[in-house]
């Protein structure tokens, strides 16, 4: 009833090509943006900002990066965490070695470094596909972390290979409070997400999807495979790199190369599988699911049965429930949580007269 598009006419191409063609969606989107930019910083406490919202946003960005590569272009990658590490360490080095470089510039340069490394490790994708490519990107995962530990230059000769984020100052304002860090992270993520959304619905994205669906056919219709695949690797790594830099500068403050291990790459992969492969919204939902659910379960366990069960049992039970829920959602909706939202929308459009 509320969600009905009758009477909404498109009178120009501009209108026809909007991201949200339905007016209710537009209103919803702007309401969400307003809520997250204006209301959340006021009502959320430090815990919510620093421990929940900032990491969810950062992981969403990383998942978005992987989604471009795996979801849209069909190239399976297990190196996302390594590209995050490249972004973090490159940004650190730009901040350290270039006097007076603005943070945003260092961040973008860090992302570009990650993109360059991504292209390098994307080269095997021209020859190998599927699981075999995943193994090749696994090499990136181990190689990059090894290089960062092995060569002291990257961490400014810290004995343990650890880097400490410098203070972030933009136009004379130093980002120290959780609110300001949250807003900066949110702005960067929103801009990059909108860019990604526009990329995937333009010719760039269509080329990716053509390559994903059948690369021989894509080649036949004139899409340059090498160009398209490497472009996806570059853009995906750029997103991961920016996420890595934000992870270091906005979230943890001090990071070690081991923090970007294979485990993290898997978590990002799970985010897009749970959230929805080839879906921008899915990246956000997936990141929220993977980051928040264990925390939620831990809190639930403590308040509900924590006093009656030994801590070992409670801790393992959390993992079991977490795993069971993942399996449950994958059975109920193999295309991810974003698909659930899409189905809901379709139902709503014809509600209350389904026929």
């Amino acid at each position, binding site marked *: 009833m509320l969600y009905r598009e009758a009477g909404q006419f498109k009178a120009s191409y501009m209108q026809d090509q909007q991201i949200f063609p339905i007016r209710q969606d537009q209103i919803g989107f702007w309401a969400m943006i307003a809520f997250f930019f204006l209301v959340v910083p006021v009502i959320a406490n*430090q*815990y919510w900002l*620093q*421990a*929940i919202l900032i*990491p969810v946003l950062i992981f969403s960005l990383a998942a978005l990066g992987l989604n471009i590569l795996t979801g849209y272009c069909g190239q399976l990658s297990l190196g996302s965490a390594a590209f995050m590490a490249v972004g973090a360490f490159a940004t650190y080095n730009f901040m*350290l070695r270039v006097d007076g470089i603005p943070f945003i510039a260092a961040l973008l340069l860090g992302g570009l470094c990650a993109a360059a490394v991504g292209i390098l490790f994307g080269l095997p994708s021209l020859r190998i596909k599927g699981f075999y490519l995943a193994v090749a990107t696994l090499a990136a995962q*181990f190689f990059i972390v*090894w290089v960062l*530990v092995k060569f002291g230059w990257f961490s*400014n000769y*810290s*004995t*343990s*290979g*650890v880097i*400490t*984020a*410098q*203070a972030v100052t933009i136009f004379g304002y130093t980002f120290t409070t959780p609110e300001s860090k949250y807003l900066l992270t949110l702005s960067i993520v929103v801009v990059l997400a909108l860019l990604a959304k526009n990329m995937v619905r333009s010719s760039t994205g269509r080329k990716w999807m053509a390559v994903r669906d059948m690369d021989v056919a894509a080649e036949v219709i004139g899409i340059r495979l090498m160009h398209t695949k490497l472009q996806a690797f570059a853009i995906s790594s750029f997103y991961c790199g920016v996420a890595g830099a934000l992870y270091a500068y906005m*979230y*943890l*403050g*001090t*990071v*070690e*190369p*081991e*923090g970007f291990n294979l*485990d993290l790459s898997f978590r990002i992969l799970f985010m897009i599988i749970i959230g929805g492969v080839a879906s921008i919204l899915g990246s956000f939902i997936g990141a929220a699911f993977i*980051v928040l659910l*264990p*925390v939620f379960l*831990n*809190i639930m366990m*403590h308040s509900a049965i924590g*006093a*009656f*069960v*030994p*801590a*070992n049992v409670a*801790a*393992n039970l*959390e*993992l079991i429930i977490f795993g069971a829920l993942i399996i449950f959602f994958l059975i109920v909706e193999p295309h991810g949580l974003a698909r659930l939202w899409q189905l809901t929308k379709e139902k709503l459009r014809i509600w209350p007269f389904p026929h």
Partner: protein
Amino acid sequence: MQFSKTLMLGATVAGLLTTGFAVAQEQYIGLPSYRVGAYAAGGTALYGGWIDYMQMLNQRDGGVGGVKLTWEECETEYNNARGVECYERMKNRGPTGNTVFQPLSTGITYSVLDRVAVDKIPLVTMGYGRTDAADGRVFPWVFPLITTYWSQNTAKIKFIGQQEGGMDKLKGKKIVNLYHDSAYGNETIPVLNAQAERYGFTIVHIPVAHPGNEQQSQWLRIRQERPDWVILRGWGVMNPTAIRTAARTGFPREKIVGVWWSGSEEDVIPAGDAAKGYIAAGFNVAGKNFPVVQEIEKHVYAKNLGNMEDKSRVGSVLYNRGVVHGIITVEAIRKAQEKYGTGKSLTPEQVRWGFENLDIDEARLAELGAEGFLPPLKTSCENHEGSGMVKFQQWDGTRWNVITDWIEADQELVRPMIEASAAAYAAEKGITPRDCSKEM
């Protein structure tokens, strides 16, 4: 039976908590534990020992200075992001906030390093974490207590020197440093190089890639090198594998010296008979024949309040290390109570003062029933390490036997390196080191 037991335990804990709230005189300690995942064996024993010690004090003395100890666990899974979430979740709990944060993970230590200074919560890392944080002028909120990796390494070389019959005998000897190829493993290379230069021995660094469950090539190389000693700087599954492979290639286990993260029952039992004779360092020793462990058995396990499900692990190296965590944390609270008053909850900032002015001498250790259990400890504004002493234990196939007295670290060598590293950090971050003469 099991069910009724857990029910009883639960009721007691619930009872404790409610009485604690009613009186409101409690000291809240947030425990970022890990009981699942690859390092669960360590996490359960360590946090179990720590909780048991606090439980024992609550049962026996009603807490510390009339203040009941309360605690809450938060599962980190040894994962940095989860650790940060736990830190943020617990930091404002209890009447005065989280007293101290001890994550038992170097990764989580780094992740909260910047936050503790802002939130004014002491971060205590015993035997791990950031080595140069021992310089309390640059890191007022961080306490790598008892001993750091660097200190331990010099103690280890001293031990090898003792075995050879004097430090001058080290000249011309060859030592292999078999290390886990990670930040943790790489950390001691500069110290070893400095010592090799000073004492004239040759050092060969051989990395083992994570997780290290295949070390054939490394040990073949060790056989070619024919070293006099091997230092094992391992982690997790790498340790039993190293010991087993050493046995296969015929390297004597009596010549392998492990760090403290390579020296628990969990590291040697999987290696079976091959581990006989293997030596490892430790800032606490194993065994139950210490009054403090016996008190725990009497006041906690006899009443079925123990945290360990497998009671046979009480008295193991890692369990006892948990007890050491408990002892030092409680001593810091006690010290702070001397200054700020007993019978009330202290703020984390006050407890930080306690950590900075710890003075646990032999006499105090005897009172605590922990003589020889952990080294004496004295911290100050400059020195956040406090001791630097370790003992060496040898595995005889069934248990660890202590084979040395406390061996002191070579502070002369380590301290300037720590200060240089801390100064570099301070310069990078724009921190002005504290003037310790102004601290009281």
